[in-house]
């Protein structure tokens, strides 16, 4: 039996088959390239500081550090401690404002 002459080309180390970028990734790239991501981050940060969310999270971290001993905490620990409470306690108005802006960006970017 003859080996097939239509052997698929040997995959080259440099030429890995590129994955289709997901829609999410495309959006992310567009956000970053247009500078909109930076603006949205700044806006969200500002709103969260204004409404005291940041101080709440810092207090949670401080309490945790006190309990655990301040030299025994890791960034990972703190992220895990803060994330559930943090996600839940964003005020609705802040979330709505940000979602509105993101949606209008998506519209303008014709996605």
């Amino acid at each position: 039996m003859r080996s097939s002459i239509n052997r698929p080309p040997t995959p080259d180390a440099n030429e890995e088959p590129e994955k289709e970028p997901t829609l999410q990734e495309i959006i992310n790239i567009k956000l970053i390239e247009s500078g909109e991501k930076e603006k949205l981050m700044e806006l969200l940060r500002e709103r969260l500081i204004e409404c005291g969310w940041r101080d709440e999270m810092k207090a949670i971290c401080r309490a945790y550090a006190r309990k655990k001993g301040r030299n025994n905490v890791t960034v990972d620990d703190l992220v895990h401690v803060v994330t559930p409470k943090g996600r839940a306690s964003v005020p609705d108005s802040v979330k709505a404002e940000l979602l509105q802006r993101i949606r209008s960006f998506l519209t303008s970017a014709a996605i």
Partner: protein
Amino acid sequence: MSVSNDGNSSPRSQLASRCFEDLLDSIIVDVASECHRIARLGLDRNLEEEEEELRLSVQARVADPSSSSEANSKNVVDIFGQTHPAIADEIFECMNCGRPIVAGRFAPHLEKCMGKGRKARKVTRSSTIARTRHSRGSPVSVYAPYSNATNSNRAPNGTTGGSGEEYADYTYGVP
């Protein structure tokens, strides 16, 4: 184009939500990282103070195991780790008469100096009348020999005019 605001189920809203969560996660990591830094570098005074207090209280207890602080005032250690002599020995100038006074003896000195005591009253009577008549409305002076509670409360307000003119007359004109 169809309206995208039809609730959370539309793909655009889902995308928007995911973007938002992305942003929020970044900010959460920011906060966590900053708090971690503060904790590890000991920048949070409160965290440090608690450890300090624990250590100092143990230290103070070790330094003075026998008696309570009141009984043995010479050897007591305060929260900063300092000891104090029984009688304060710093010397400064009395602001009334200008004499150098030992701090621990200041109160009795003031009694005589400002004329609160029975004997001192007679001495200062004439001189205070003369002084207050001279310096009307001086913010410092209520050299009233009868130390009435109201006097000492009104003096710092700088009552001008009828402040201590006639010391027997207690109807001070309210400014």
